[in-house]
């Protein structure tokens, strides 16, 4: 497993909002150690039985947490992220969708300068099944096992996790890095953690059209990752020039096509599944190979 485990303590920024409170409840129900919430002006109150603080600094000091999950509205997210970083956050999971990309770029610059980790924005979060869930993923479809997953999509991650779980293939950790063009953790950073993780035997990489992140990941895997990797690319039939939901999912100037990504993976010796169920099939084959080796 990577990034989070049963001992990870997390605080929720925006815990008293509609989304924040609903998912605070879900995370606690899953077993995540949610130790505090942060809402300026509501310090001293409680939500879902956990204490609420006015500032991240107070919350970290009082609870010993160094991980924060952020549910604040888009225009407040840069400030919330900066506050967490300056309070000493080591891991920030930024769920909020619709953050202006220039704000994301400013947050990413600070994250790099501090050597912290940022997952998101516009992401479903991260789960180490059976131990810790941070974000909005539906916990019931995941189960513990040897498959590491990294994905640019939220609900498609659930789809593929469901296919894996129903085939008896559990997951070590699943990271949804988000679909925005400017974001914190990308494939490479997640892959670099999975490749050294003892529990992870097979890695699933879920990509989509737009940008060149999948091509770069293919090159990284070829050079650095010995574990088997199975890839899936969404948008194989997407028309060019149209933004397919995610701000980053667009084929422009002939770049960012599914074909280019699939070719890059195949050249690097990575199996590319055509459907979510085929991902499970390829992973099952790969785990058998790992077992034989």
């Amino acid at each position, binding site marked *: 497993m990577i990034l989070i485990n049963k001992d990870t303590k997390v605080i929720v920024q925006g815990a008293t909002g509609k*989304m924040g409170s609903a*998912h605070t409840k*879900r995370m606690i129900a899953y077993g995540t150690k949610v130790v505090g919430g942060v809402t300026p002006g509501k310090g001293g109150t409680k939500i879902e039985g956990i204490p609420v603080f006015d500032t991240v600094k107070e919350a970290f000091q009082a609870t010993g947490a160094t991980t924060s999950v952020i549910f604040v509205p*888009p*225009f407040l997210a840069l400030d919330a992220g900066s506050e967490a970083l300056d309070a000493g956050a080591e891991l920030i999971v930024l*769920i909020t*969708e*619709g*953050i*202006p*990309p*220039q704000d994301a*770029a400013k947050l*990413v*610059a600070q994250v790099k300068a501090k050597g912290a980790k940022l997952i998101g924005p516009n992401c*479903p979060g991260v789960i180490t099944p059976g131990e810790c869930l941070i974000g*909005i*993923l*539906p916990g019931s*479809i995941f189960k513990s096992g040897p498959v590491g997953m990294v*994905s*640019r*999509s*939220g*609900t*498609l*991650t*659930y*789809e593929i996790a*469901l296919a894996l779980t129903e085939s008896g293939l559990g997951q070590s950790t699943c990271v949804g890095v988000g*679909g925005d*063009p*400017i*974001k914190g953790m990308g494939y490479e950073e997640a892959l670099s953690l999975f490749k050294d993780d003892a529990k992870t035997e097979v890695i699933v990489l*879920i990509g*989509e059209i737009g*940008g*060149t*992140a999948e091509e*770069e990941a293919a090159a990284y895997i070829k050079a650095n990752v010995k574990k088997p990797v199975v890839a*899936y690319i*969404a*948008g*194989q*039939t*997407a*028309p060019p020039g*149209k*933004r*397919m*939901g*995610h*701000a*980053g*999912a667009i084929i422009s*100037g002939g770049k960012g096509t599914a074909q280019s990504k699939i070719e890059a993976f195949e050249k690097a010796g990575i199996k590319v599944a*055509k*459907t*979510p*169920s085929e991902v499970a099939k390829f992973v099952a084959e790969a785990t058998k190979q790992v077992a034989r080796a």
Partner: protein
Amino acid sequence: MNLYEWEAKKIFQEHGIPVPPSHRITKPEELRKVHLGYPLTLKVQVQSGGRGKAGGIQFAQDLKDGETKAKDLLKMVINGSKTESLLVEPRLKIAREIYLSVTLDRSRGCAIFIASAEGGIEIESSTNVVTMPIPYPYHDYVGRDLAKQIGLTGNLLNKFADLANKLYKLFESKDLELAEINPLIVTDGDEVLALDGKITICDDALGRHKCFAGWQETHMLDLSEREKRSKRAGLNLVELDGNIGILCNGAGLTMATMDLVKAFGGQPGNFLDAGGGSDTEKTLEALEIVHDNPKCDVILVNILGGITACDEVAQALVAFMKRHPERKLVVRLRGNNQDVAEKMLAESGLKLYPELEAAVKQAVEQSKVPAGAKR
């Protein structure tokens, strides 16, 4: 949101970037009120690229010539993009053309300058281009560095650096995705001017710039009615040619569902991503938009509830089926609050498909049954 050239130039001017004198007209006879001398340049205002190649820029020798040309130009449609107006400018004598833009680089995760000592070109196909990451916080020396890197010297180096700095500040202060001057020209009188400009404003940031309030409505000229409705409702719709309406939550899942429909021999009629956390009302509007496509024979709904609650979707489905009992629906619903949703839909008599591939196969089959048949 892409701005028209005339809007971009107005914003450039407000931020100290010099542009040629100009006049915007929407009728040929308005040319009579333009006193910029002849010859004049007439440029169609469209949101699509490739304007010059398509004949959207014409020169007028006198008023009569101008009115004739303006009449044709105002009717032009370029790559599906309608002409909104004409921008009229004096025809300038150009000594030199330069390219300059600021945009966001997704691989580097920061803003970048793109510049070339050759302007008026298609920047994607040029080899003589400099790309420079922009440090945050910004300093004015960055503009000089850029000028140096593209080989400028003397007075022009300073003038270009000043414009690059102003363009970046505009980019940052207005939350732009792209600010482009192509070409930036040096006239035979040594004036440096933005001859053509392109600005893309980040849609997600519109809410914090009062100066752009209401602009979204005036930039929908090229959208279909359903695309306009989607935009207003905060839904992501892409129209396609087939007869299977697709409604999912999340971009990746919608794309994957669309890919599966094609793989199983069906033809997607649209891509509609309802996004994360859509409630009953928003989901119902999404269903109505897909339903209103005259080419649509069957609607395929695939929802995996994380931040979206399945019961909210189920409520929308129940309301939709009451309004349109004749509409063929194939629904797959999994995730948060699935049990509540299943109960609600069982009461309404709708069959659910828990497996994605089974749902897609069913939708493809239904799409091949002649219209009018019952679901």
